[in-house]
């Protein structure tokens, strides 16, 4: 029940972000849908006992994959879908607590939160990269040892 409420709120919040970034109308609801799926994957991963970084990676990968597929289908730049999709993963609360600890002079705690923030941001990037490499399969631009020629 709580998850359902969270999903509804995610949908509204992602659409709000879509309007801030001026995502075109036909992609707005799709972006919200991708955001909901992202949040669902993240929460499911954590519920199954995976670490938050790994769950973030999975969620980011699924968001980017869906964004690539849909973008091809409705002929739209993939950023308009992938940005709303990965927004629910942004480690805003970790970043805030990092800063709070540093302001209060608790540097060790701040570093701990800071590393967590970086890892989570890295996981988002990693998911995007994985999806990108799946969808650019076969379009290699060159090999390090020219073995491909």
């Amino acid at each position, binding site marked *: 029940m709580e998850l359902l409420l969270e999903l509804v709120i995610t949908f509204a919040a992602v*659409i*709000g*972000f*879509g309007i*801030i970034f001026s995502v*075109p109308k036909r992609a707005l609801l799709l972006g919200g849908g991708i955001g909901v799926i992202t949040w669902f994957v993240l929460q499911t991963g954590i519920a199954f006992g995976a670490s938050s970084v790994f769950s973030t990676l999975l969620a980011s990968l699924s968001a980017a994959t869906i964004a690539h597929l849909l973008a091809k289908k409705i002929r739209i*730049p993939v950023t308009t879908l*992938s940005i709303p999709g990965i927004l629910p993963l*942004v480690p805003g609360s970790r970043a805030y607590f990092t800063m709070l600890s540093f302001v209060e002079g608790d540097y060790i705690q701040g570093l701990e939160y800071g590393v967590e923030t970086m890892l989570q941001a890295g996981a988002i990037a990693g998911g995007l990269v994985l999806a990108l490499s799946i969808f650019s399969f076969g379009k290699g*631009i060159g090999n390090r040892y020219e073995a491909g020629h």
Partner: protein
Amino acid sequence: MQAADEVMDMCLLAGEIMLKYGAETYRVEETLERMARASGFTNVHCFTTTTGIFLSFEERKGKEDLMQMVRIDDRMQDLNKVTEVNQVSREFTAGELTVGAAHERLLQIHKTPIHYPIWLIHLAAGVAGSGFSYLFGGRLVDLLPAYIAAVLASVTLVEFERYLKVRFAAEMAAAFIGGSVAIFLVYAGVGSSVDQIIIGSLMPLVPGVQLTNAVRDLLSGDLLAGMSRGVEALLTSLSIASGIALTISLFL
């Protein structure tokens, strides 16, 4: 073969709109190269960084190459314009548009104001902010104060950017106002968890588009553009952080 001058103008206008309103560097380069090739020119090269575009191509063999550049001064997010330019380039490459018609449509895209009215953007910032304050562990009573704080932060950002040349100062002011309003509302008895409300009110300021584009640019090999975009996003985050640090050390 079309007039090289017209094609150059059209291509650079398309690139300028895309880069200014938040397209990735690789998309700008690819679009310009495709459009120039579709008009029948050879030896097409495009080099794009976060702040400028160079485009060169050969009009005909034996004649010197044509090369021009545009400088991009300010950058903002309007993904709708990127999508529309993408559509124009698709139709142009498929041969459905002449150079003149494409130029006309690009000028129109450039002129149209932002896709959504500004009040809707402020309200949307409120919805996004309050939504995220709940998702980050807030409670339902925090929705209203987070909404108010996020709307005020968004209004501050837009109004300051109108008059200030330094964008990062506007972001810092917006973070300061958002955080102060959040703390004030909690003192006044509206809402319970001050941390979650502050985070929520700051979320609409987070440079999401720049960060994603920086990763994409770095991965596709545009190291220069990726680094500069990443630094831009980092500076934005730092100015938000310093704005909120000021609030906390003053009021908390």
